[in-house]
């Protein structure tokens, strides 16, 4: 059974203080690892898909990386508007099912 574990559960940063969010996964035949951002009262918003170990993707202050066991979402010089819950999910094997972690709640103080 696919499993996704995210850490820490919550993270509080000062504006400009860079950090990383971790996503550890166990999946049979990784097809894709996804990062989403979720704001309160809204559905998850797609950020990145990573397909193979060594792959990296960037968008503004966010950079996602992937190894065979985990993914990191690096946040460089965060701003208060980056405050949200960040979700990691994987698909594997023959199905399209997404398995999610519980998410990391990021709070960035001005």
């Amino acid at each position, binding site marked *: 059974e696919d499993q*996704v574990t995210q850490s820490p559960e919550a993270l509080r940063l000062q504006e400009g203080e860079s950090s990383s969010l971790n996503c550890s996964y166990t999946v049979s035949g990784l097809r894709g690892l996804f990062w989403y951002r979720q704001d309160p*009262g809204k559905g*998850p918003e797609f950020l990145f898909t990573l397909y193979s170990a060594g792959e990296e993707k960037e968008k503004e202050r966010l950079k996602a990386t992937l190894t065979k066991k985990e993914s990191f979402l690096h946040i460089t010089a965060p701003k208060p508007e980056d405050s949200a819950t960040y979700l990691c999910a994987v698909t594997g094997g023959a199905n*399209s099912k997404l398995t*999610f972690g519980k998410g990391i709640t990021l709070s960035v103080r001005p």
Partner: protein
Amino acid sequence: SAVISQKPSRDICQRGTSLTIQCQVDSQVTMMFWYRQQPGQSLTLIATANQGSEATYESGFVIDKFPISRPNLTFSTLTVSNMSPEDSSIYLCSVTEGVHGYTFGSGTRLTVV
């Protein structure tokens, strides 16, 4: 990417009643997915709905409790039947968009009293 309209956005319901949640997509999609997001828990897949066939339910979810309709390629409904307080949750529909991952609706926040 696809735009998903989901309604209602929230509702408060009496136990024992049923609520039907609607999901409308602005483009034709083969598969639609229904998720549940309970407080402090992961998003959990309830079922996958393909047009013209019965929905496929995940372990722990049954058709009698969560009947799904998929009358065409842009629309689906999820009904939460005979509700109890344990059904209080956020329910989300989703479609797959290939390299863009999966797009989600804004969710329905259900409170059962």
